[in-house]
């Protein structure tokens, strides 16, 4: 019997029945126990913004050490158009629908950040997914939305996508809802709830969703400009939503130390109201939680800076180099917070057993501006660690190196010539340590049409950055 199906572990007002007949796992612990070792990865791969005459593609990477094609891209699903900038993607169903008999974790929803085109891939054959449906940009613009980002499924089979801009690439952004047939259902939230948008995560048992802020597409698309920071064009707020109503209940301004809050994660346990967000430009990590004893509100959310990465001096840079922590994730057992400092060249893990007081467990200095390891298997690393993904058992951390094509060109221009890599560290969760696996290297520099960038990573059967429990 799963944890969540134990009557004592269920809140009295929680009506969800814990029959596990649908996709995913009954609980986060079940994912750890029942999930197999990842043998394939889907990775966003892109040519947008380069002179290579080829569309972006989804890579299928062989992660099975016993396979003859280990560390190779064994399939590439080319999309129909150039110019998409594939970025983040998600499943049509995850563990939040574990009670939905007949629903499968089968379709990958793959948006183009620049094009606003949304692709649906049928991944029933895990090694050879096929393009099934394309929602063209014009259909998206009809809802005065553009720049699709985070894809999560809603527990009943529908899909919600955070959209960063309006049809003109300006503010406000919002959320686009797709139905189970992958047609646009409409705008999920009442227009005007937020201005900026980026990532989001929901905790349905607590009836809460949290969303973060990057900027208007017209601001971040061309590249990072300090003028935009000075003009207040970048975000620094978190929004806490009533998940059922789709309305913002509370907004927290993180201030100057919370500039550009990007990836936002609740702990996996559906009972928890704790989570973390990385403020990339300020190089800080914030902890947020619901303060039940808040005197000025009924269970208001609080946010507090808990990790601060100092800028570092470098001879080749005129000003101290910020760390730029661009991605974070929480291990499936909710014990560790992992992250990547893209500019410094570091992956790190903090013990978050006490989420208010993260304790630095270990880090790896690899790639980036300061990395102690600058090549793996004689392959020079063109950029720092960026998008990360962790095995369900928490023992293998993988990462790619591309952030966003135009930002890559500013900070690591050589990545356009060499392409991205995917690297791996072996993690010892018991001791809280990481070790770079120098036998592991996937190289996007050798793609047939030319060097490509690699971005977000997903496992075929659920992972630490997409599964939610109801």
């Amino acid at each position, binding site marked *: 019997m799963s944890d969540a199906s134990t009557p004592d572990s269920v809140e009295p007002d929680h009506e969800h029945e814990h029959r596990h007949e649908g996709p995913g796992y009954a609980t986060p612990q079940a994912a750890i126990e029942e999930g197999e070792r990842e043998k394939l990865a889907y990775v966003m791969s892109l040519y*947008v*913004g*380069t*002179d290579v*005459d080829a569309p972006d593609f989804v890579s299928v990477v062989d992660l099975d050490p016993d396979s003859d094609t280990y560390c190779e891209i064994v399939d590439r699903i080319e999309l129909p158009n*150039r*110019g*998409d*900038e594939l970025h983040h993607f998600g499943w049509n169903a995850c563990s939040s629908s574990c009670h939905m008999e007949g629903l499968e974790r089968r379709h990958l929803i793959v948006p183009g950040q*620049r*094009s*606003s085109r949304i692709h649906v891939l049928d991944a029933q054959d895990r090694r050879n997914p096929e393009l099934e449906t394309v929602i063209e*940009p014009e259909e998206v*613009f009809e809802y005065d939305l*553009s720049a699709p980002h985070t894809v999560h499924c809603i527990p009943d089979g529908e899909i919600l996508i955070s959209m960063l*801009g309006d*049809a*003109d*690439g*300006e503010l406000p952004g919002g959320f686009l809802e797709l139905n189970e047939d992958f047609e646009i259902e409409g705008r999920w939230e009442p227009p005007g709830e937020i201005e900026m948008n980026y990532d989001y995560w929901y905790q349905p048992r607590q009836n809460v969703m949290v969303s973060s802020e990057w900027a208007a*597409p*017209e601001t971040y*698309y*061309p*590249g*990072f*400009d*300090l*003028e935009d920071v000075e003009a207040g064009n970048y975000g620094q707020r978190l929004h806490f939503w009533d998940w059922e109503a789709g309305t913002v209940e509370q907004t927290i301004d993180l201030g100057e130390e919370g500039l550009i809050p990007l990836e936002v994660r609740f702990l996996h346990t559906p009972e928890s109201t704790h989570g973390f967000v990385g403020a990339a430009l300020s190089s800080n990590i914030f902890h947020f939680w619901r303060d039940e004893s808040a005197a000025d509100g009924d269970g208001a959310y609080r946010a507090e800076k808990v990790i601060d990465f100092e800028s570092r001096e470098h001879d*080749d*840079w*005129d*000003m*101290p*180099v*910020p760390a730029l922590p661009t991605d974070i994730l929480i291990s499936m057992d909710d014990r560790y917070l992992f992250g990547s400092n893209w500019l410094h060249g570091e992956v790190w893990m903090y013990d978050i057993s006490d989420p208010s007081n993260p304790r630095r467990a270990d880090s790896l200095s690899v790639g980036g501006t300061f990395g102690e390891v600058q090549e793996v298997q004689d392959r020079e690393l063109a950029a720092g660690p960026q998008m990360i993904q962790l095995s369900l058992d928490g023992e293998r951390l993988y990462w790619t190196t591309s952030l966003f*094509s*135009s930002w890559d*060109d*500013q*900070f690591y*221009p050589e990545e*356009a010539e060499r392409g991205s890599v995917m690297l791996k560290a072996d993690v010892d969760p018991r001791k809280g340590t990481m070790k770079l696996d120098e036998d592991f290297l996937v190289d996007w520099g050798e793609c047939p049409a030319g060097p490509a960038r690699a971005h977000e990573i997903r496992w075929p059967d659920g992972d630490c950055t997409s599964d939610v429990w109801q």
Partner: protein
Amino acid sequence: MTSHDVTLEWPDGRTRTVEVDENETILEAAECDGSVLPYGCRTGACGTCSGRLLEVEGTRPSNGERAGDGDADVCAVDDVVAYRRLPRALKDRHRATGYVLLCIASPRADCRIAVGSSVHSELVDNPWK
């Protein structure tokens, strides 16, 4: 229908002259011609398709700012192209120095334009380096 000759110039020295109607964009005409130009949003928001105006036929060099080393002076870019929509990805300083969004720009004069992914990279540099 009036058309203009737009000469596209890549960093490796390749050039291609495309005849562009006044009601089509330079990107559309280049695609019909089989020329590969970078693009993204196709709505003027992302800047991926940025080109840089090098010369306008029939106009004397203006006193405008130079667009870059080795480039001819440019006259007001807004007189050379008509935009279907607002070129949101370009800041005033970009437009003043001759940058053009080819996905929404139609020519109003014969001209030469630097193209290729490196033009987009010129819009912003690393502010810390």
